[in-house]
């Protein structure tokens, strides 16, 4: 039982940042924009959240700072691809490089600093209880991420604004012709994606390892991108996927430490297999989805294409 509880807590820790960044990117892609700069936005969020917490002493302001910084970085990307119609793939990659460098620069004066931690959202007795901590023992950011899974799903499926956003992503010219601002919707989506990636990054620098180190996201932004595809652009599946990615890393680490001895087959599987699994699974899922027709693929039809209205 202890083993199980500890495993769940570890898996939640691994899954939360990629879930946050993935939810943001999901909304961005649903609006028809492909932003490959998730890694850069996460790093910007990681340093901004850390810096804001150090300067204000308040982790809540830190999270808000991370969201704002992520949104600003994304808005820069938005200006380039939406207003200036630059190539989305190249600009997204540039955003990652820019975010990496910018976070290093800002981070220079925050090396070695310590940040105050979030208190527990629930009464401390619940958060410390050996069994109940599996429900109550997380950082507020984790509960925020879970709530956002439902908010994003509900928004895209059941609200008028979500319908417009999807229409813009599926057929920008039609949405434009009936009077919606394609560029405005996409700006909003891109900024939201940046804010979520920023909070995801701040989860590293403020919760998992409360410190700033250059490149501390170590490629999680790319996993978040893979996760969106893996999830077939659905928020519920994104949650399942994030947990699945977390389970796979947990399996990898346990397999290496000999902690999967109770699974007799596990000892015959090289631990590198578990490390490769997320990517293998993404390829398999992509193959399966693309074997079905275009509707089943569920990718927004305008994904990655610049919007150039007929004059």
């Amino acid at each position: 039982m202890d083993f199980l509880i500890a495993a769940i807590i570890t898996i939640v820790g691994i899954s939360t940042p990629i879930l946050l960044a993935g939810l943001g990117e999901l909304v961005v892609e649903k609006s028809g924009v492909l932003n490959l700069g998730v890694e850069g936005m996460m790093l910007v969020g990681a340093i901004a959240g850390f810096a804001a917490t150090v300067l204000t002493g308040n982790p809540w302001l830190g999270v808000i700072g991370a969201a704002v910084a992520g949104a600003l970085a994304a808005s820069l990307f938005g200006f380039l691809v939406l207003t200036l119609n630059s190539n989305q793939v190249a600009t997204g990659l540039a955003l990652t490089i820019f975010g990496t460098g910018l976070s290093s620069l800002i981070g220079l004066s925050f090396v070695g600093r310590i940040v105050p931690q979030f208190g527990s959202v629930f009464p401390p007795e619940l958060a410390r209880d050996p069994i109940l901590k599996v429900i109550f023992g997380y950082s507020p950011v984790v509960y925020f991420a879970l709530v956002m899974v439902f908010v994003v799903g509900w928004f895209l499926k059941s609200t008028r604004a979500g319908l417009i956003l999807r229409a813009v992503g599926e057929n920008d010219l039609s949405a434009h012709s009936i009077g919606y601002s394609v560029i405005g919707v996409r700006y909003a989506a891109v900024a939201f994606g940046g804010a979520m990636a920023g909070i995801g990054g701040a989860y590293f620098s403020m919760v998992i390892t409360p410190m700033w180190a250059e490149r501390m996201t170590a490629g999680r932004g790319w996993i978040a991108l893979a996760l969106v595809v893996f999830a077939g652009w659905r928020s519920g599946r994104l949650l399942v996927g994030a947990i699945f990615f977390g389970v796979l890393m947990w399996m990898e680490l346990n397999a290496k430490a000999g902690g999967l001895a109770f699974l007799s087959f596990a000892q015959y599987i090289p631990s590198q297999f578990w490390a490769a699994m997320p990517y293998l699974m993404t390829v398999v899922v992509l193959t399966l989805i693309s074997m079905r027709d275009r509707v089943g693929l569920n990718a927004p039809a305008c994904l990655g294409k610049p919007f150039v209205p007929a004059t």
Partner: protein
Amino acid sequence: MANLNRRNFIAAAGAAAAAVPLVGGAAFAQEKIKIGFIFLGPIGDYGWTWAHNKGREAVDAALGDKVETIYVENVAEDASAIPLIRDLAQQGCKLIFTTSYGYMDQTIAVAAEFPDVKFEHCTGFKRADNVATYNSKFHEGRAVLGTISGKMSKSGTLGYLGSYKVPEVVLGVNSFLLAAQKQNPDAKLKLVFIDSWFDPPKEAAATETLINLGCDIVTTHTDSPAALQILEQKGLYGFGQGADMSSFAPNAHLTAIEDIWGPYYIERVQAIIDGTWASADTWDGMKEGTVVISPYNKAVPADVVALADGVQAGYKDGTYDIFTGPIYDQDGNLKVEEGKVMTMAELAVIDWFVKGVESAA
């Protein structure tokens, strides 16, 4: 010092303007001899690269009027390192330090193109007329940590967070556990390789995994303080790697192995200035001051401090060597006979774990 800050600023600003990896330094003095450094991680990793950069700063401090140091950080250990090493040579560096095992073949390849440039490869074994190798006996420090762990672990199960299965790490694992077993013959060790030198989220998750599997002391052979922060949260113990990391985990941090590269770097750069540089294989340790143990945490009891100091003293005067037989491997085969001491040549290529190491990989 102002100069240094300015250089750091230029390095980061250059990256912000979209250059990656970061290229530090700019040429502003013609008569100074240029010395280049290739770094594995960011200089702010608090660990491996941080320590090498301290060595570079020591060169600046000691010989800054005669030499100018430039560096490239975040260089991958693959073919992409070749143009970066070559670039340093083309910029006119007379001596280039490549500071990680994974640059071995790349260093040899570039060195063949620039016979007039001297190279120093850290922790490798391939040499040439203009390529020297240097290393540090980190495992001597690991024996001190193992001694402390063997005494202080309640469960007798120790955790080891490894990066890759390379001789340096294998030596560290074996040294750590053998020393722990001297204090507690039943001590065993769970080992996880994370296949990276620097990945704080994965280091944190791996540490949690080791704790869940019953380890109450976890030592790290990766480059960030992430593991120590997890141990601090859980009220358990660990050690800093590469640098004193006590500010990140004031209670969990029992002590650390500090890498002190400055004296070696100054000596080799001086040899370039004097024109006496020659290819060599240098493997210094505690005796020479390359490996230093940080101040002990007050949580370490006095008798354990005495034992740990004894190991340090033994290495300094040559009376202690943890790789003294009998030593058995994981499967119980006798690898080193009673009374025999493993040679440095044997240690340099070691690829087997001692009895008590539990690892699937």
